[in-house]
């Protein structure tokens, strides 16, 4: 009995394994052929571009697929192969690909990655393509200049196709019911948090981001409060300036008293869920979460307002808060890759992409589109960017370990302050030291004076 069973099993396993191995073998040959270096294609020869999206998901993937469809209809000889990478792992995926020199032709990337990728020699400078292109007359010059300024050689490595702006999403219906005015200053903001607390209904005035991504939120909030530059005239960082210490102390003192206890592990999803399920009245995010709010809350019960102003009445925004398309040096089809970058930045494509994803277009021609005029949150963002008094501060994106400082020092530091293991001053001193050490290393490497 056992013998028969064993023989049958062995036969089945052998057949199955040979089938699988044959299947795998076939595909590996196919892969090998596709990864071999091809000669550059001549005009109208069929070309396949690989495009990596650094923030794939249900909201963006279908939008990219539609943009690609439109591009392929315009350029029938070019096929774009879309690869969606989950946001949380995107940087690691790019890092591995750059190290192994197996990068895509075009990639979507955050501004903070541009300096590092360019120093590592992974990206192709786009200055000459950009100068000759029509889109150079249309794109937001400020965003383009930021991308140049942050790289070590001051070249343009990424074309920004969408911008973002930190803001407050508020439950306007609750504000109205409670007779509370929308916060214009940071003092209003803190007072409103207290006024909107309603233990009977388990409602809080605000939710603090204490988990993944907390560093971005606290950085943008404290600079919006102080209106300071990232570095002072002597090149010393203002991170641990007394104004920031004062703000961080007050901000986190609201935790577990005026904001939910669970805030200490709040990432984006937890934070928006608290807002969308009617637990908190205000959340600090950006226009990107509009899609989530609109699905969960009835129209007219929520809106986006700018972050409160400094005591001088100034709006503050972080420079370089954009997503870009970059061309990788390894591409065998730079002209076709540029055509794709140029197409995505055309008014039509940017209008479609940004409308669907709730981001702010960088192409000026899109501003007149009906959807921009009718989208409250986009209009607010434009008002802030177009306000002549708005101060733009520039974080040192060019430091290769800027992002890792935020992820490994600032994110856990926020939790330490929230849990009372560290004071605001100690936290900011530690953060400032990390930035200054990194800057000193950078200046020494590139002999900056």
């Amino acid at each position, binding site marked *: 009995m*056992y*013998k028969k069973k*064993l023989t049958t099993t062995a036969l089945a*396993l052998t057949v*199955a*394994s040979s089938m*699988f*191995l044959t*299947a*795998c*073998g076939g*595909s*590996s040959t196919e*892969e*090998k052929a596709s*990864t*071999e270096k091809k000669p550059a294609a001549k005009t109208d020869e069929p070309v396949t571009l*690989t495009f990596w999206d650094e*923030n*794939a*998901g*249900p*909201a*963006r*993937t279908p939008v990219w697929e539609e943009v690609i469809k439109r591009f392929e209809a315009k350029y029938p000889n070019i096929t774009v*192969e*879309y*690869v*969606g*990478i*989950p*946001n*949380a*792992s995107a940087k*690691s*995926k790019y*890092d*591995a*690909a750059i*190290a*192994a*020199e*197996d990068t*895509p032709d075009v990639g979507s990337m955050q501004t903070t990655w541009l300096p590092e990728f360019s120093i590592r020699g992974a990206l192709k400078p786009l200055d000459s393509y950009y100068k000759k292109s029509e889109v150079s007359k249309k794109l937001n010059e400020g965003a383009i200049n930021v991308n140049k300024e942050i790289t070590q050689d001051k070249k343009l490595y990424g074309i920004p196709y969408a911008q973002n702006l930190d803001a407050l999403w508020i439950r306007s219906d609750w504000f109205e019911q409670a007779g509370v005015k929308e916060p214009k200053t940071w003092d209003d903001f803190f007072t409103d948090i207290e006024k909107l607390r309603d233990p009977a209904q388990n409602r809080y005035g605000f939710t603090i981001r204490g988990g993944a991504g907390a560093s971005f939120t606290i950085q943008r909030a404290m600079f919006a409060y102080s209106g300071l530059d990232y570095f002072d005239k002597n090149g010393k960082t203002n991170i641990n300036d007394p104004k920031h210490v004062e703000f961080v102390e007050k901000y986190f003192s609201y935790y577990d008293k005026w904001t939910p206890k669970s805030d200490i592990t709040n990432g*984006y*999803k937890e934070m*928006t*869920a608290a807002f*969308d*399920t*009617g637990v908190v009245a205000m959340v600090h995010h950006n226009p*990107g*979460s509009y*899609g*989530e709010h609109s*699905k*969960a809350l009835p129209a007219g019960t929520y809106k986006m307002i700018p972050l409160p102003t400094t005591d001088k009445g100034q709006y503050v925004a972080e420079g370089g808060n954009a997503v870009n398309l970059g061309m990788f040096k390894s591409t065998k089809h730079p002209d076709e890759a540029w055509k794709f970058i140029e197409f995505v930045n055309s008014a039509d494509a940017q209008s479609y992409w940004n409308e669907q*994803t*709730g981001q702010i277009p960088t192409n000026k021609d899109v501003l007149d589109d009906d959807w921009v005029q009718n989208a409250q949150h986009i209009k607010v963002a434009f008002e802030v960017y177009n306000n002549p008094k708005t101060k733009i501060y520039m974080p040192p994106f060019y430091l290769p370990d800027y992002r890792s400082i935020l992820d490994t020092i600032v994110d856990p530091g926020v939790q330490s302050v929230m849990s009372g293991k560290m004071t605001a001053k100690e936290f900011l001193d530690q953060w400032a030291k990390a930035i200054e050490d990194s800057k000193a290393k950078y200046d020494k490497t590139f002999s900056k004076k």
Partner: protein
Amino acid sequence: MLFNNKKVDKLLTMYLPITFMLCFTIFPLYWTVNTAFKPEGDIIKRPLQYLPAHPTIDNFVNAWTNIGFATFFKNSAIVGVTAVIVVLVCSTLSGYALARYQFKGKRAFMLMLLCTQFIPRAMMIIPLFIIFKNLGLISSPLSLIITYSAVEIPFTTILMSGFIANVPKELEEAAMIDGCNKLQSLRHVVFPLLLPGIVATGVFTFIYTWNEFLIALMLTNKQDKFTLPVGLSSMMGEFNVNYGALAAGSVIALIPAILLFAYAQKHLVNGMGGAVKG
């Protein structure tokens, strides 16, 4: 007095802790299934719905057909089943050698096998990427099969050697006296007794390959070669989560694991017993 009553005693010491544990482990599963059958609008609606008010299979249809779970499922199955076969063959044979033969450096070899388990997976990513790129195997299921087999074989070899050591050597010797050669005695005497161990090892390997995310993400650059965990993660954008499809995809991904455990449960318990007897 209270504890003299056997029924109450049993209730307090057995049924109550088991029920508590069951609730604790079943709740996330229940919530996933509950979410999978809800229409998008009902998922984050307050008050929470503990049973779907408008049950639908749209999320499953969407996940399977539009999002590509059919492809992800196929890819995971190819990688999982093949890796299990490779791991079982290699670890049974090498486990036999470790259990039955004495050779120079055996202890050092065992130690080396154990040491391979201490290397963080993330550290292997870039070297693996470079190796498979040079072999032309990026985005091929073979790269995952090779990696998963290489990662699992050391541990499963130790596991199998424990199982084999529990099979009395005398049985093999008796078979050989009856005319079997070494391989025949292995096939007819040792393997049938090893079945619980083989099932346990196979199940552990399959679950690892089925759930593994990081290596699968890094070594796959084509959407149609993604495995289930990578496909599932693409349901979560930075600012948007498709909870319905995510839950439906998770249920789809859970089915083989649950069926496998249900089928292998008996062997698994026996197998683990065999492994710890030593």
